[in-house]
């Protein structure tokens, strides 16, 4: 970083102006407006009256909000830890491979991550199709009969979780792979000389050294999965979705379907606060990592 002796305010202005303008207009202003709106009874595009804490008090009585929170937690629980574990497991396999084979295997695992959500949901919708999708055989094997997966409430979120794991785990693989490559190979050589088996090597070398990456990946996943909308929306649509309601979908439905902009903003503020709290957690984790 250059420590220039004098200030270059006039030089700096045109450099920062484009970003500051975009950031101010499209991030700061909407954020402040969201907070203001959450204290009003606005419609989506028609400003309303100030109603004090009414919206916030209503949050606690609103069973749909409660349902959205618990469904979101349920979904995060089904995805955050499994996708972190999958990422680590796959990365450890990929790390053992060499050259061409490694590149191909990594590409196969990573490819789903770059696909648009509609591609992913359509492929899995077909595979889970009732009654003769290719995966219905597997389902029949476990529960005894084919299932209308996206028409059966108890199946919807777990199925979306499986699809999401397939879609997003490749990202974790990359981060873990970078972490694994940073572990000095001499450590493993030394462990081998001491007669340590694979499990011992994992317990005493890989796991402690990869832990900071694990914490990072896990917190990224927590935040990412909390924002579930696209996949779920494409499977259950804008129709009767109360049973599988999640936070972002609730914001969408309040704002765009029920025209209750003020209350939608209140739910958005709640989501904002949750994500910010988790970001602070992540930041603390990263800082702790920096200190090691």
């Amino acid at each position, binding site marked *: 970083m250059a420590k220039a002796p004098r200030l270059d*305010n006039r030089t700096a202005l045109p450099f920062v102006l484009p970003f500051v303008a975009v950031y101010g207009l499209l991030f700061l202003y909407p954020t402040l407006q*969201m907070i203001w709106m959450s204290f009003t009874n606005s419609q989506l595009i028609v400003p309303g009256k100030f109603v004090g804490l009414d919206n916030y008090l209503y949050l606690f009585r609103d069973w749909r909000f409660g349902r959205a929170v618990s469904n979101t937690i349920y979904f995060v629980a089904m995805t955050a830890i499994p996708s972190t574990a999958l990422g680590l497991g796959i990365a450890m396999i990929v790390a053992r491979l060499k050259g061409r084979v490694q590149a191909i295997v990594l590409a196969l695992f990573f490819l789903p991550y770059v696909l648009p959500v509609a591609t992913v949901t359509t492929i899995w919708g077909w595979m889970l199709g009732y009654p003769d999708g290719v995966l219905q055989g597997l389902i029949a094997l476990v529960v005894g009969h084919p299932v209308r997966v996206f028409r059966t409430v108890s199946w919807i979120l777990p199925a979306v979780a499986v699809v999401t794991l397939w879609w997003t785990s490749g990202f974790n693989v990359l981060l873990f792979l970078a972490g694994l490559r940073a572990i000095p190979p001499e450590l493993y050589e030394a462990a081998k000389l001491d007669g340590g088996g694979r499990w011992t090597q994992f317990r005493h070398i890989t796991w402690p050294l990869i832990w900071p990456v694990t914490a990072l990946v896990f917190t990224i996943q927590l935040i990412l999965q909390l924002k579930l909308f696209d996949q779920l929306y494409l499977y259950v649509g804008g129709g009767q979705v109360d049973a599988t309601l999640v936070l972002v979908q609730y914001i969408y439905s309040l704002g765009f379907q029920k025209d209750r902009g003020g209350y939608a903003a209140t739910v958005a503020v709640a989501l904002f606060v949750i994500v910010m709290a988790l970001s602070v957690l992540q930041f603390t984790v990263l800082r702790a990592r920096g200190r090691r």
Partner: protein
Amino acid sequence: MSGEAVVAAPGASQLRLIRRLDVGGLVLSIIGLGAAILWAFPLYWSIMTTVIPPGGHSSGSALTDIGNALGLYAHVLFGTEIGLWYVNSIVTSTGVTVGVLFISATCGYAISQLAFNGRKLLWGMILASFMVPIQALIINHFFLMNALHLINTWLGVILPQLIAPVAVIVYKQFFDSVPKELREAALLDGAGHWSLLFRVFLPVNWGVTAALAIIVFIGAWNAFLWPFLAVTEEPLMNISVGITQAQEIFGVGELAGAILTGLPVALVYLIFQRKVTDAIIVSAGIKG
């Protein structure tokens, strides 16, 4: 799996061979390859299904099957507005990419190389908004874009997607590590900061720009929620949204449409694999 093991002395050779081959490692490699193939099975299966539809029979000749599949894809391409949607996606994704890179490179340069009032505050705000949930702002983005009459326009799709503090962070970090001598030499030659940025700092970090460009483009191509809200008229939709609304395609046509939607980004990834992985690792803060 070295070739030497094969020519080891007889007798002990088998034992050595086993040790050299590292049986456990070999098994893991096979498991790895098997798992990767299983992982990619949905992709293979979906493509194959568009060639030989379920319940349909292979005509017995691969040539005829492929001919039928091409007919199916042609129907999807020309029977829907998918051509328009491709154009919309290309324009808006390119717009987002150029916009994000421009505002991030200039701002990252200023924070890294210039001293100005408010520099610390700006940097702090950028770091703090690293992980902001843009989804929470959909109501207010819609409100704003509606007020600016930008609903159902390319610009309306692009603007809210320009919020990408990560790109500023990445540029700032890379600009920090550009050798001071380069800067001093150029300034002595009378170059201004703009030419310093565009003639020295950006070219030196060309790889970063390319990597960021690719992932920002893929991200914008794949974006669903905002483009879905910002556009209500079919001809103006991005392909990622349009394909989910198309009434003209059904049956295996849906699968073919889904494949055509993902194909461009899949190709971009396969061509620029290294850049994509580098960009993701750098922007997650693992290194850099």
